[in-house]
């Protein structure tokens, strides 16, 4: 049984009077892929926002046995949580290579002091970073665009750039928000293979998506949310058989 990397419980997020996420918990083990599905507005993205510290939230978050205080993006990042957003977020004026470099966990010689007073050392460290960033780009198939500005990429390529950023950040937990949106069948399959390879490296994955086949093939366990609450949880086979999941997606009779 692999070690638990992420253990979140009792996560609550409120906006004004609305409970966007209500007492949600999720557990991910090393190398495991957990999917989060549910109809629109069920709080999936908000849950990721809470775990990555982008929105204020209450609850408990434990990563690798250490408690992580919610509400600070820097804290979540230090704990090893790396987040990909629903919309691609490229830095348009940076090249693809720089986009990936910016996500590196290696922060040696990153300050002004090093840039001015320790250039030979900084350049040595930089070369190592360039190499690993380029490797990440190769892995997602964007190597030939390394020196182009991210603004010229297509939507699908921008998504892949986000994945490259996520991988190169050496995360403990990689959280992806609808990574297959905008990709065709072929690209989706390639992404599937890539993500399973990342999980095989020992990274814990938390994936939100709508494509049933994709989630089914990718995930070891699935959590289903509706209006901020968990309605079902278990292996893909268990979840698809659960009546409540059907109701959540299609609505029950008396909702008409």
């Amino acid at each position, binding site marked *: 049984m692999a070690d638990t990397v992420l253990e979140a419980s009792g996560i609550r997020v409120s906006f004004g009077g609305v409970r966007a996420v209500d007492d949600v918990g999720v557990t991910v083990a090393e190398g495991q892929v957990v999917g989060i599905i549910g109809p629109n507005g069920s709080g999936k993205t908000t849950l990721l926002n809470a775990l990555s510290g982008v929105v204020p939230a209450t609850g408990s978050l434990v990563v690798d046995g250490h408690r992580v205080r919610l509400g600070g993006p820097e804290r979540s990042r230090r704990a090893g949580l790396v987040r990909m957003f629903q919309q691609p977020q490229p830095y348009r004026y940076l090249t693809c290579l720089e986009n990936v470099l910016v996500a590196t966990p290696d922060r040696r010689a990153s300050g*002004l002091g090093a840039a001015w007073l320790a250039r030979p050392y900084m350049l040595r460290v930089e070369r190592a970073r360039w190499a690993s960033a380029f490797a990440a780009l190769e892995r997602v198939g964007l190597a030939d665009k390394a020196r182009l500005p991210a603004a010229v990429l297509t939507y699908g390529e921008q998504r892949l750039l986000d994945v490259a950023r996520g991988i190169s950040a050496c995360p403990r937990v990689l959280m992806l928000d609808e990574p297959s949106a905008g990709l065709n069948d072929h690209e989706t399959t390639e992404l599937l293979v890539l993500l399973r390879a990342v999980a095989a490296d020992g990274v814990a994955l938390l994936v939100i998506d709508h494509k049933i086949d994709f989630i089914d093939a990718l995930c070891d366990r699935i959590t289903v949310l509706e209006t901020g609450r968990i309605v079902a949880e278990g292996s893909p086979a268990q979840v698809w058989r659960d009546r409540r999941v059907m109701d959540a997606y299609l609505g029950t009779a008396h909702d008409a």
Partner: protein
Amino acid sequence: MTDTHNPAAPPDGATERTGVPGLDAASGRLDDLRARLGASPRGTVKPPVYGRHQYLGVLAFVAVTAVAAPNLITSAEGTNLLDLWLLYSLAGIGFYWIFGLGGRFAFCQTTMMAVGAYASAYTIERGQPFWLSALCGAAAAGAVAAVVGLALARAQHFAFAIGTLAVSQIGMVVFSRTSEFTGVNGQVTGLPYASLFGHTFDSDRGAFWLFLGVLGLALLLGVFLERSPVGREAVAARDGEMVARTAGIPVRRVHLMLYVLGSVAGGLSGALLANWQGFVGVDQFGLDLGIGIFLMVILGGAGSIWGPVLGAGFYVWAPKLLSDFKEYQGVVYGALLLVMIMVAPEGLIGLAGRARALLRRVGKGGAHG
């Protein structure tokens, strides 16, 4: 962790062999030389900003200016404007670091120039050598910026701008009233000429060399900054702050550092200005110059360190071009600012870049068609 990562390299890692013995031997020796100098091995994929053109640009600028300017501009008025251009470029570069790279609009750059001017005047009147007083001026501006920057650290873009506006207004009042530090009504006169290594810069022509050296150094330091993680982290923090924070970039530290750095540049510019003119007055660092600095950076281009240099050139020579239409100066500046911000927010440098890309595309089309 390998250092080379050439996608075209053969899998066993051996460098390409052309088959021509002399050539292969030569390129092998070149590779050794590169390794010994610490340069990147051939074929390393690196961000374009690390190309050689950056250094060449600075070198070319300094060389061309050093050669062309004294020969082309010989009148006293012209040399005076030349010196002013160099000093304003320095202040503009500071604003570029704060606003162009850092993405935060600061109203107080002229206040930092004034702090530098007054601090340097204060120290030089107490008998300190010129180089020390200039450094004191720059350091004083940096200290004030550190305090202001820390106080406003949590402020978002707009609140930060308003906060620095408040600082600039406070500065105006303080400078005219604190007589022991800034002279009666903020006027300090009778400052001695700048002197360095025993040489006194007592003419505009002499000062030109000093200012060109300082500007060249600032440009070099700016290039160093952009050829480092700092440059790309600044752009990331500017363009996508929340995403940058989730990626682990120390956004607040980057912003504070750029603000202090930019203010130090402004302070140094003010200190040099004070010593060159021989006096400091509170009016010269007022709203007109403040708007002038925005104009310089926005007109020249806020996306490049060369933008302020170009814009400062315009700002310094425009009054001469408009000498018959002095009252229209405000209208022209305002209209120019308005047009630039609406049509070409990347300034003249951005337009030049766009023109170059367009020409390249036209050229390609011509070759095929």
